[in-house]
């Protein structure tokens, strides 16, 4: 009972978009795909949706191949936003609903409910081209979930949205999770992943470099982070003298140091106490996803993407 991606590979000409990718996503889970541009996130989603066929490997949902399960199983929010520009919002949504087998009346009712929830009920009779980008995004989200899919795949759902709309979308997200849906999304935003996801996979040039629950991934390096602040010594120069400790961030609030695998972060506390410092803040934590990501992939490229195949061909 889960979504199983089994050693999937896919080439576009010379470029290997996915290489032997295997993942298991449990039902009801929120799963995040992380990766730089061209890492293969969009290709992976399209293969799950059976929009693209892999060169080798299979995808199965609840034990059945994705080529055999109903298309209505999936809800898809593509990275590239698009609606029929000249069509009224309510008309497009009932159209997409009908294509998925939803009765027009029900589709219309559901649409109006969702528009209400997104605080844009007055847009039902507007044409798509009259809407702002953020509002078009909400319309597309509704289009993706109108037929009550079991699995919702969203490609970069939060890019280009203002904080209010991000919050609204997250709310809708969590509601889908509460309804028992499986949610899969890709993003660059590590905080969002840490906030929403139970499991993740970090992709790099078509390979899964690390995957599993967020907790396991954060612990995967074996390193730990110490955050410390002492009274009257913002520099804490002595930190670097401890064996296996490397200062990674100096801030006004606290200094963060990395404790290498096999070393005890408690040593930092003991050292501080030994130096009779007055400790204002002390915290042992796992590396953030961002740090794990940088460790595996290198610098995060936050520049806007064009479209996945283009990036792949480039």
């Amino acid at each position: 009972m889960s979504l199983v991606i089994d050693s999937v590979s896919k080439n576009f000409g010379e470029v290997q978009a996915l290489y032997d990718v295997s993942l298991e996503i449990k039902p009801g889970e929120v799963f995040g795909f992380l990766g730089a541009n061209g890492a293969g996130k969009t290709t992976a989603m399209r293969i799950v949706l059976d929009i693209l066929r892999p060169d080798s490997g299979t995808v199965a949902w609840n034990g059945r191949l994705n080529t055999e399960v109903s298309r209505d199983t999936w809800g898809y929010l593509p990275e590239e936003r698009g609606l029929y520009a000249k069509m009224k919002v309510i008309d497009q949504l009932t159209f997409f609903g009908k294509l998925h087998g939803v009765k027009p009346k029900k589709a219309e009712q559901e649409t109006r409910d969702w528009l209400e929830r997104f605080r844009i009920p007055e847009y039902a009779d507007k044409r798509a081209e009259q809407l702002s980008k953020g509002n078009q995004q909400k319309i597309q989200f509704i289009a993706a979930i109108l037929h009550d899919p079991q699995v919702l795949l969203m490609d970069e759902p939060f890019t280009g949205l203002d904080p209010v709309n991000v919050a609204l979308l997250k709310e809708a997200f969590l509601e889908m999770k509460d309804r028992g849906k499986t949610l899969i999304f890709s993003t660059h935003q590590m905080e969002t992943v840490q906030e929403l996801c139970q499991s993740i996979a970090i992709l790099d040039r078509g390979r899964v470099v690390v995957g599993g629950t967020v907790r396991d991934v954060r612990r995967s390096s074996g390193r730990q982070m110490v955050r410390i602040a002492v009274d009257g010594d913002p520099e804490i120069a002595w930190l670097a003298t401890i064996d296996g400790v490397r200062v990674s961030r100096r801030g006004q609030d606290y200094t963060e140091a990395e404790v290498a695998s096999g070393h005890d972060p408690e040593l930092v506390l003991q050292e501080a106490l030994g130096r009779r410092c007055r400790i204002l803040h002390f915290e042992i934590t796992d590396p953030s996803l961002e740090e794990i990501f940088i460790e595996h992939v290198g610098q995060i490229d936050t520049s806007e993407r064009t479209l996945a195949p283009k990036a792949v061909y480039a």
Partner: protein
Amino acid sequence: MTGWRTLFPNAWYISVREFRSRASSRSFVIGTVLLAILAFAATQAPVLIDKVAGGSQTRIEVVDLASGLPSDAPTVLDQSLNGTATSGSSLLGGYALSWLAGGQLSAAQQDLQGGKFDALLIVDRDPASSDLVFTLRTDMPADGRQAQTIGNAVYSLAIEDRLARAGTSTAAVLAPAKWSVLPVSLSGTATTNNINQELSSSLLSTGLVVLIFMAIITYGTWVAMSVAEEKGSRVMELMLNATTPLQMLAGKVIGNGAAGLTQYGAILGAVLVGLLVQGPIHRAVLGGSDSGPAVSGLTVPLVASFMVLFALGFLLYSLLYAALGSLVSRQEDVQSATSPLMMLVMVGYFMSIVAIQSVTDTWVVVLSYVPFFSPYLMLARVAGGHVQLWEFGLAVVFMLAAIAVALFLAARIYSAGVLLYGQRVGLRQVLKAARVSR
């Protein structure tokens, strides 16, 4: 190819959407209305020409001093001056004749001098030879075009008069000869086309071929545009999850085809109405009776085969237009992407124009079975009246087979093409992508 669900109802929903969005667009509405008005106006052109020409009529009074003029003399003179009803009216003004008996000569001369007439024609008979003698009093130059025309007309009248005196008439002399063309085998039945029918059928088939040609080019491009638009606005990605390429393809072809047929119907309807009211309008505007040109030669088999070939030809070409439309990312590129197809359509069209003159040639017969050319060449053959039912049936079967192949290929190219975004997608890239697409 697995994973393709049944075609309906989704293809139907898509075609309804396509039809609505096409038919409610401003360009469609304005285009249809304008074209219909233009088509209607074109059918009224003869009336307009007569009306304009009527203002510059040359008024001639004819005084008949001769005895025993043929009874159809006024008709002969009128027809040779103004042309016959079937050959259409003269573009450069006409001639109005008023006939006066011999006793009114002096009154007629007064009218001429008073400027009520442009010319006075006196018809007399030479007592010696019994031939007609004509005198034209006018200030028009004697070697001018009008004087020459009148000279030719009176010559016709003189001939008619001579024939009448010899006991016959022009109509009897010029009556078509009976002739039939028989096949080499003695058992075959005659094809009894006379030369006149031959001519009108070639005009008719040219007209029908043009209708098919225009429809394929215009509405095929619509299909390609609509695919490119969907791809350009990126709705395609939503559609791909909701439907299959085959459903999209079918929906687009049907929806745009229906919109195209609607526009076509409106234009043809306007033409039909125009032809029907041409006579009454002519009478209302100009007085007198003038029967509009009859739509002759449109037999039921010809109309039926036109409709079959039209539908199949449109299907075949639209599928290819859709496939090519899926290869471009922007609507601006549709023209260049579809130009190879345009060439194919043009080749078929020009061949058919040549073929209409020689519908029995071997190359025409052979090529009329090639699905891309059947809509033109088979139609030309049908209009020429040289086609057995089985021959037509064979062409239809070939076209259906070609449509099935085109559907398969187009769906493959389409499902690969719609995901390829970039400047210009090469054929090799498409074929490669098509191999692994669903």
